[in-house]
C-alpha cells in the first residue's frame, strides 16, 4: 500500500471514531459526560480488534469497547447479524464497566456480512440500583448496582424495560438515543470509506494502520532499559471492611516487548471497588502510554507488544457477583502502580503520586416534588515531577483536565444548591525539592434536603512523595450543620441524608512532593 493511501485511511478511521464521539457527547443528556469525561467511541472489526479510538473522550475507556466487542461476537456471530441491528450491553464480567456505562454496537455490512462495528459508550443518567445515578458506594453485590445486560439487540421492548428501571427514564432514553446517533454517524463514515476505497483496500489499510502502530510502540519500548520494575498502591479500605488492600504490579521490559503482571494484588471483595477486567486493562495501558510517544494512536497494534496478566478472582479481575460500581479507585491504583514501576525504568520521567479523582452525587430525597441530581467530581493535586512542581487541582486522571469540573452557574440553575466557594488549599501539596500540586476545597450549601453518595481514596494514606518528598495533605468529605463546625464523613458512603441549611464540603488531596527540600535533612 502506498504512503498516501495508508495515511489517508489512518486519518479517516480515527476521524470516524471522532465523529461518533462528538455526536454522542453533544447529544447526551447525562450531565456527567458533557465534557466527554465518561464516554468513548471506536471503530472495531469482526475479529474483535480495536481499529481506532476517539481522541476527544476519556482514556479510562481505551480498552472497554475492545473487551465488550469480544462478548458481542461470542453471543452473536457476525453471520447472524442483519441490517438494522443495534446491540447494547453493560455486563461487567464480559467487557463492561459497571451498570451505568452502556455500550452500543452497530455493524457495518459488506455484501451482507458484518465486517466492522461502530461502538459508543457513555455513563447514562440512571439505570436503577440502590443509589441515584449509579455507583452505589457501599454495594456488596452487583445486583445492587443496576440492571445488567448481556450483549442483546436494542429493541423497543428492551427500551421499555430499561425505562421502567430508571429513576429518570426520559434522560436515560435520550442518552441511549445519543449513543445510537453516535454509532450511526460512525457507520455512515465507514460506509463512505468503503464506497470510496472498496472494502478490501480498507481492510488492507487497517492491517497497515495496526502494524505501523505496533512498530512505533516497539521502537519506543527499546528505549526503556531492560529489567523488572515493581510498583504498588495501598487502597485505604473498601468502604465495607476496615482493612487496606494491595495493588501490586511487576513490569518486565525485555527488548521491544513488556510483561505487566498484577500477581500479588489482593483478592476481590464484596464491596464496590473491584475493577472489571476491561477497566484494569484501560488503566494499565493508559499508564504505559504515558511513557511512549504521545502521538501513537490507540488501537490493537498498540496493545500487541504487551502481555498483561491479571489473576482471576483478584480485585482487578473479579468474579460474579462482586460489585464493580466503585471501580475507579482500583483503576487509579492500577495507573499509579504502573507509573511508579515505569518511573524506575525512566528516572528522567519519574513522577510522585497524585491526589485521585474525588466524585460525589447529591440527589433529591424520595419525597421531593421535582427530582434533581448533581453528579460531579473534583480533582486533587498532581504529584511533583522530576524538575517540576505538580499542578494544582488537576490530578493525573487519564489525561483529563479541569474542564471536567462543572461551572457554578449552570449547577445552581438546575439544582437547589449554592456553591459557596471553590478554593485552593494552601500548603496541601507535599513538600520536597519539587512541591506537589495543591488540593481544592469546594463548599455546597444545600437549599433543600438531599442524599449524598461519595467514594474516594488516599484520605488515610495520602499520596506519597518520591525520593524523599513529603506526602500531600489528605482530603476528605465533610458536613457542616448550621451553626456547627466541619465533621468528617466516611470516605466511602451511600445515601447519607443531609438537610436544607447543611453544607457539604469536598476536599481533595494534595500531590506528593519529589526529592528532599533544600535546607532540610531526610
Amino acid at each position, binding site marked *: 500500500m502506498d504512503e498516501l493511501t495508508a495515511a489517508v485511511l489512518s486519518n479517516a478511521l480515527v476521524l470516524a471514531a471522532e465523529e461518533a464521539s462528538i455526536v454522542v457527547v453533544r447529544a447526551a443528556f447525562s450531565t456527567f459526560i458533557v465534557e466527554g469525561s465518561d464516554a468513548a467511541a471506536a471503530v472495531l472489526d469482526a475479529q474483535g480488534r480495536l481499529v481506532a479510538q476517539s481522541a476527544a473522550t476519556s482514556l479510562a475507556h481505551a480498552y472497554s469497547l475492545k473487551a465488550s466487542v469480544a462478548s458481542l461476537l461470542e453471543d452473536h456471530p457476525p453471520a447472524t447479524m442483519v441490517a438494522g441491528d443495534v446491540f447494547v450491553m453493560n455486563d461487567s464480567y464480559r467487557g463492561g464497566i459497571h451498570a451505568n456505562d452502556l455500550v452500543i454496537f452497530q455493524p457495518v455490512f459488506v455484501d451482507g456480512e458484518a465486517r466492522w462495528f461502530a461502538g459508543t459508550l457513555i455513563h447514562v443518567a440512571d439505570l436503577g440500583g440502590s443509589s441515584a445515578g449509579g455507583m452505589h458506594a457501599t454495594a456488596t453485590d452487583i445486583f445492587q448496582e443496576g440492571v445488567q445486560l448481556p450483549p442483546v439487540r436494542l429493541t423497543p421492548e428492551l427500551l421499555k424495560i430499561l425505562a421502567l428501571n430508571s429513576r429518570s427514564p426520559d434522560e436515560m432514553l435520550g442518552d441511549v438515543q445519543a449513543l445510537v446517533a453516535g454509532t450511526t454517524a460512525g457507520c455512515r463514515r465507514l460506509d463512505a470509506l468503503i464506497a470510496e476505497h472498496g472494502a478490501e483496500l480498507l481492510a488492507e489499510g487497517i492491517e497497515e494502520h495496526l502494524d505501523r502502530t505496533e512498530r512505533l510502540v516497539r521502537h519506543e519500548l527499546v528505549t526503556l532499559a531492560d529489567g523488572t520494575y515493581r510498583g504498588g498502591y495501598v487502597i485505604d479500605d473498601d468502604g465495607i471492611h476496615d482493612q487496606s488492600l494491595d495493588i501490586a504490579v511487576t513490569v518486565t521490559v525485555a527488548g521491544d516487548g513488556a510483561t505487566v503482571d498484577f500477581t500479588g494484588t489482593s483478592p476481590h471483595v464484596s464491596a464496590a471497588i473491584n475493577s472489571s477486567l476491561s477497566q484494569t486493562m484501560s488503566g494499565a495501558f493508559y499508564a504505559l502510554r504515558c511513557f511512549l510517544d504521545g502521538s501513537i494512536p490507540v488501537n490493537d497494534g498498540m496493545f500487541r507488544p504487551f502481555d498483561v496478566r491479571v489473576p482471576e478472582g483478584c480485585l482487578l479481575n473479579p468474579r460474579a457477583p462482586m460489585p464493580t460500581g466503585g471501580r475507579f479507585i482500583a483503576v487509579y491504583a492500577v495507573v499509579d502502580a504502573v507509573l511508579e514501576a515505569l518511573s524506575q525504568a525512566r528516572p528522567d520521567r519519574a513522577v510522585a503520586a497524585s491526589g485521585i479523582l474525588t466524585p460525589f452525587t447529591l440527589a433529591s430525597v424520595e419525597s421531593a416534588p421535582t427530582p434533581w441530581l448533581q453528579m460531579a467530581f473534583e480533582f486533587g493535586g498532581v504529584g511533583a515531577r522530576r524538575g517540576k512542581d505538580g499542578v494544582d487541582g488537576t490530578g493525573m486522571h487519564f489525561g483529563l483536565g479541569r474542564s471536567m469540573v462543572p461551572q457554578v452557574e449552570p449547577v445552581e440553575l438546575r439544582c437547589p444548591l449554592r456553591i*459557596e466557594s471553590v*478554593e485552593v488549599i494552601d500548603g496541601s501539596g507535599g513538600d520536597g525539592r519539587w512541591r506537589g500540586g495543591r488540593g481544592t476545597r469546594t463548599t455546597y450549601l444545600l437549599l433543600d434536603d438531599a442524599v449524598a453518595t461519595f467514594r474516594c481514596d488516599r484520605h488515610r494514606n495520602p499520596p506519597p512523595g518520591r525520593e524523599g518528598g513529603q506526602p500531600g495533605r489528605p482530603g476528605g468529605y465533610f458536613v457542616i450543620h448550621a451553626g456547627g463546625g466541619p465533621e468528617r464523613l466516611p470516605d466511602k458512603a451511600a445515601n447519607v441524608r443531609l438537610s436544607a441549611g447543611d453544607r457539604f464540603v469536598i476536599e481533595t488531596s494534595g500531590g506528593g512532593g519529589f526529592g528532599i527540600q533544600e535546607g532540610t535533612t531526610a
Partner: protein
Amino acid sequence: MSALLGVDIGGTFTDIVVVDDGGRATFGKLLTTPEDPAAAFVDGALDALARAGVAPADVTRVAHATTLATNVILERRGVPVAFVTTAGFRSLLTLGRASRTGDQRFDLFFDAEESPVPEDRCFEVPERLGPLGVVVEPLDETAAAAVVDRIAELGVASVAVCLLHAYANPVHERRLGELLEARLPGVPVVLSSEVWPELREHDRAATTVMSAYVGPVMAGYLDDLGRRLGAVGVRAPIHVMDSGGGVMSAALASRRAVRTIESGPAAGVVAAARTGARAGIGDVLSFDMGGTTAKAAVVRGGRPELTYDFRVGGSASGGGHGGGLPIKVPAVDLVEVGSGGGSIAWVDPAGTLRVGPRSAGADPGPACYGRGGTRPTVTDADLMLGYLDPAGVAGGSVLLHPDRSEAALQEHVAGPLGMSVLEAAAAVHDLANALMGDAVHIVTVQRGIDPRRFTLVALGGAGPMHAARIAERFAIDRVLVPVGTGVGSALGLLTTDVTTERSHALVAPLDALDPAAVAALLAEVERACLADLEVGTDDVVVERSVDARYRGQGHDLNVGAPSGEVNAAWLAAVGDAFHARYAERYGSATPRPVEVVAVRVRVRQPVPPADVTVTGGEGRPPSKRPAWFADAGGFVPTEVHHRDALAAGDCVSGPAIVQEPEATVVVPPSWSATVDIRGDLMLERARG
C-alpha cells in the same frame, strides 16, 4: 477619484488591496513587520495607492484585519489587569478549566494553563446573587472599597469584574464599576455583564479579562495607526474586521478587542462568500491556505456559519473542545489546521512520512527561500513538482532556489524512505493535501454536511495550487478562484458590512416564555447594538437568533429566529427551526421539550460592495515547463498561462498552470479552467 483600501496583516505577509470607484483593483503583498506592524501597513498602502494613481486623501474607507489580539493573547503580552469576583472564587482563573487534548493527555509533565491574571491580582468581594438574579447577599460596600483601595495601590492598567450570576442582574457589577472608576480615573473597567451577559462564570470571566487585557494594546495600536495614516494623507475612517464576519469602527474595536481574534481568516470566509455570490452560487466551501495553517469554513445561502464557542491558545484555534482559553465572541465557524506552505516534512521512527505540525514559518522559511532553512516544506515540494515558478513568489519579492529544496527533500524524506526526490515531493504534496483536507472534512462531514454539492473557493497564494486535488477527495467538481486570490482576505475586507452583535442569557422552557418579556429583552439588546454602531434604525438589517437545546442537555445549538412581532407563532417557529437544526446535526429530532438558553441580535449596516472586475487579455503569451501529474504519467510538459493574459470566456485544459503575481493555480488533468465575465477562474472536473 475615490478609492477603498483593504489591509490584512498576517503572520508572514501583509496583503494590500486598493479598489477605485471604477472597480479597478491594485494588489500589493509585502513581508509583515512584526515589531511594528503599522510600518508595512503604511509602506504597502502608499505603494499600492501610487500604482493605482489614487491620492491618499481620496481614500474614503480603510478596512483592516489584524492578528494583534490573537498574538497578544498567545504571547501573553497584554497590559497588567486586576480581577474582581464574588467571595469564595478568587481562584476562578488561576485554577482555570484547562482541557487536555490529543497528545497532552499522555504528558505527565504537563503545565498548568497560565492565567492571564496572577493570583496576587485576583480579588473577591462579599456579595451574592441567585441564579435568576435575586440578591441573596447585598454588595458589602465597605469591603468593596477596601478592595478598590488595594487595586489602586497595584497600578494596573485595567480592571475586569465578573460576579456570579451577573448575566441575570448587573446591579452589583455596576456599583463596583462606579467605585473603581471613581477611585481609578482613566483606568478602563470592564464588566462581564457588559461584555458577555451569558451563563457560565469561567467562560464569562475569561472573556472579560481578555477584553481588559488586550483592549488598551489595541486602542494604542489603532490610535497610532490612525495618526500615521493621517500624516501621509489618509484621513478616512478605519474599520476593523471582527471574528464574526463584520467590521466595526476603530473606537468600538478598542473596546471590544477580543472580537478581532481570527479577523484575517474571517475576512477570507467573507471573501469566499462574496466570490460565490458574484457567480450566483450560495453554497461554497472556503479553503484558505497560508504559511503555517489552512482554514476551511462552510458558507450556505451566501452566509458564513457562526460559532460561540471559540478557543484560543490550544492545540488548534477554532470552535469546539480543542483546549485553550474560551473567548465568548461570535466567530465565523472556521477550522484551522496546522498544515500550510511552511509545514515541515519528516519521517518518523516507524518509517512513516509526516507533514507538520512544525512549520518553518517566515523565518527561516522553506529551504527554497534561501534564508537558512534546511528542512523540506510543502512549498519546497511544490517547487520541485514544477507548480511554483522559480522566478519567485509574492510578486517576485521572494526568489526561490530549487537546488536547496532538492537537497532538503533528499536528506530528510527521499533518502530515509528510499525513493527519488520527485516521488518524495509528490508524496509530501499529496499528504499535505490530505491534512489540509481534514479542515474541510471537519467543517462538513463531521457536521453531517455533504460536501459534494458545494463549490470550493480557493484563497491564498498557495490555496489554488492544492485546491483541485482536495476537491477530488470530497468528490467536489467545481473550484472557484477569485480575482486577487493571493490577497483574498484583504479583498474580502472591502465587501464586509459594519456589524455588531450582542446577546443576553434567557434560560427557560420555550413553551413557558412570555412573548412580551422576550420582545422587551430583544428590544433592549437591539438598542444596545444600535448604540454600538452609533446609527439609527434606518439603513440597518437586524437579525435575531436563539440558543436552544432539549431540556436536560448540556450543549446547545444556535438557530435563526424570525423578525417581526414576538407571539405564539414566533415561538413555534423557533421550536421548528431548532428541531430541524438538531436533526441535521445529530441525525434525528425528537419530540422533547425545548429549552431556550440565550437570545442574540446582530445588526448590520450594509456597505456598498467593492466589486472588482479584471478585463485581462493583455499579458504575456503562455510558456511551458515540466510539472508533475501522477495521473498524466509523471512529469509532463505543462502550459503556464499568465492570469492577466486570459480574457473572459477563455478556457484552459489541464494539465496546466495559471500564474499571477500573488498566486499560482494548478489545473490537474481532467480539470479545465474558464475565465468568467468578472475575471474569476472556474475550475471544473470532467467526469468520465
